[in-house]
């Protein structure tokens, strides 16, 4: 259901003018609200009899002329990217392993794997981080990384399983009929196709992983937020809290938006160059969490055996 035009007759000149007027009025209202917020932030305020400069006053931003501050911020970015990169590699590896176990033909491999997946999916990542930190006493970095691997690994496993289940049956049958073993068919024929098909959703999941490294803030890993808000914030004082927050937000948005667009671009590319027939275009919007559920249900209904769950 794209385009509401089918729902009603094409608007005439009066309806179009009305819609344009509405659009302008709404636009002005939104713009007005934005201006009001900025004016309020910029206005100087008094707190306990002390006059404080507005949020956009130079005295709240001057630390950013110091290259040392940027060096410090860069350290935080590197720490976040480091944790995210290690966790991403681990999560994909774990995901591959789990998808193979989960789609195994042997029930006593498949069913316990399903339970393990349900267990790790249902828990908050933060609780897992605390668990690893307290029980394994690994230090904050590994607590963050291992928890992210376990959580995202199970999700990527489910995504890949869905990819495997969505392949046309003929692929497997052809592989078996030319004399390949079960395992060879999985690794050489089915898996590469499933991986390619699911790549956009996996990339979208990696954006979630990157966002979740910020939970390191709570368990004491010096990633961007902890670095900027806690360390720089307490060094330079409360006056710079707002500007540090804005800078942190800008950094995160830049990285995440670029990755999200990359995922969508991948989805478009694989969709246009992808298989014809089959089960149609598989991935609509990789960044929409509903897509994952959709894809999983398809895998469940496609996989043989009523005990799949």
């Amino acid at each position, binding site marked *: *259901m794209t385009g509401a035009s089918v729902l009603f007759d094409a608007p005439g000149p009066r309806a179009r003018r009305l*819609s344009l007027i509405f659009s302008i009025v709404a636009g002005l209202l939104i713009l007005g609200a934005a201006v009001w917020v900025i004016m309020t932030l910029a206005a100087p305020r008094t707190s306990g009899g002390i006059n404080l400069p507005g949020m956009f006053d130079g005295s709240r931003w001057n630390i950013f002329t110091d290259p040392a501050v940027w060096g410090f911020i860069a350290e935080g970015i590197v720490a976040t990217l480091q944790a995210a990169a290690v966790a991403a590699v681990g999560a994909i590896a774990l995901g591959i392993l789990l998808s193979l176990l989960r789609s195994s033909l042997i029930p006593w491999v498949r069913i316990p794997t399903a339970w393990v997946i349900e267990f790790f999916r249902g828990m908050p990542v*933060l*609780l897992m981080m605390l668990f690893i930190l307290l029980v394994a006493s690994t230090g904050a970095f590994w607590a963050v990384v291992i928890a992210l691997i376990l959580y995202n690994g199970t999700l990527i496993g489910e995504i890949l399983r869905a990819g495997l289940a969505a392949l046309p049956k003929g692929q497997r049958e052809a592989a078996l009929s030319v004399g390949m073993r079960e395992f060879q068919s999985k690794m050489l024929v089915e898996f590469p196709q499933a991986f390619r098909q699911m790549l956009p959703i996996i990339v979208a999941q990696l954006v979630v992983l990157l966002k979740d490294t910020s939970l390191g803030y709570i368990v004491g890993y010096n990633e961007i937020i902890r670095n900027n808000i806690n360390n720089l914030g307490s060094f330079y004082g409360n006056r710079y809290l707002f500007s540090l927050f804005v800078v942190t937000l800008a950094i*995160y948005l830049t990285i995440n938006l670029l990755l999200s667009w990359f995922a969508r671009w991948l989805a478009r590319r694989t969709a246009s160059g992808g298989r014809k027939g089959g089960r149609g275009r598989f991935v609509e919007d990789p960044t929409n969490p509903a897509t994952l559920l959709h894809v999983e249900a398809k895998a469940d*209904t496609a996989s043989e055996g009523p005990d799949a*769950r």
Partner: protein
Amino acid sequence: MEQLWSLMPTFLEGFRVTLILLAVSGVSALVLGTLIAAMRISPVGALRVFAAFWTEIARNTPLTLVFIFTAFVMPMLGVRLPYLILAFIALTYYTSPFVAEALRSGINGVPVGQAEAARSIGLGFGQTVSLVVLPQAFRMTIPPLINVFIALTKNTSVAGGFFVVELFATTRQLANDNGNIVIQILLTAAALYLVITVPLGFLAGQLEKRWVVRR
């Protein structure tokens, strides 16, 4: 075991706060998300742009950073509210775009042919939407919405890092105080989260499977 048992009232108190966080932020995110989704498909261009902007920004901001804003920056800007209320605000803001996207994907999931068929047998706009499109969109929306609430359940734990004593904060405190039974305490907390998330996940999966087959 006895020691763990004696901690149960504390656990349940934390669990209660988690449930309150879930209920209040869930309902308000549903309201806000519906509003955003309505803007997103409205014929008014400015609203569409605003809703798309909101969705992109809110979805790509880490929840921790949202909590930094509500718990640290907002008080500095002169907003004096209890931390529980600030947590409601953060969770609602963060969850709203996910609700909006779930609703939108439900409406987009109804094939165009359905509306075309309805129009071609002479139904008007109101009839087409209320009798043909929305009933189908609604049931496609329920499973992803349940998934959004599962994610919200897990996300309430972040509030525990920002002065709200819910299940995660309670667990951390108890684990610090009872060094000899840390594992048991953490597993109890995990079980309490799983009590909410696993049945919900099962329900979402079943509904989605049933409707996927029928479609």
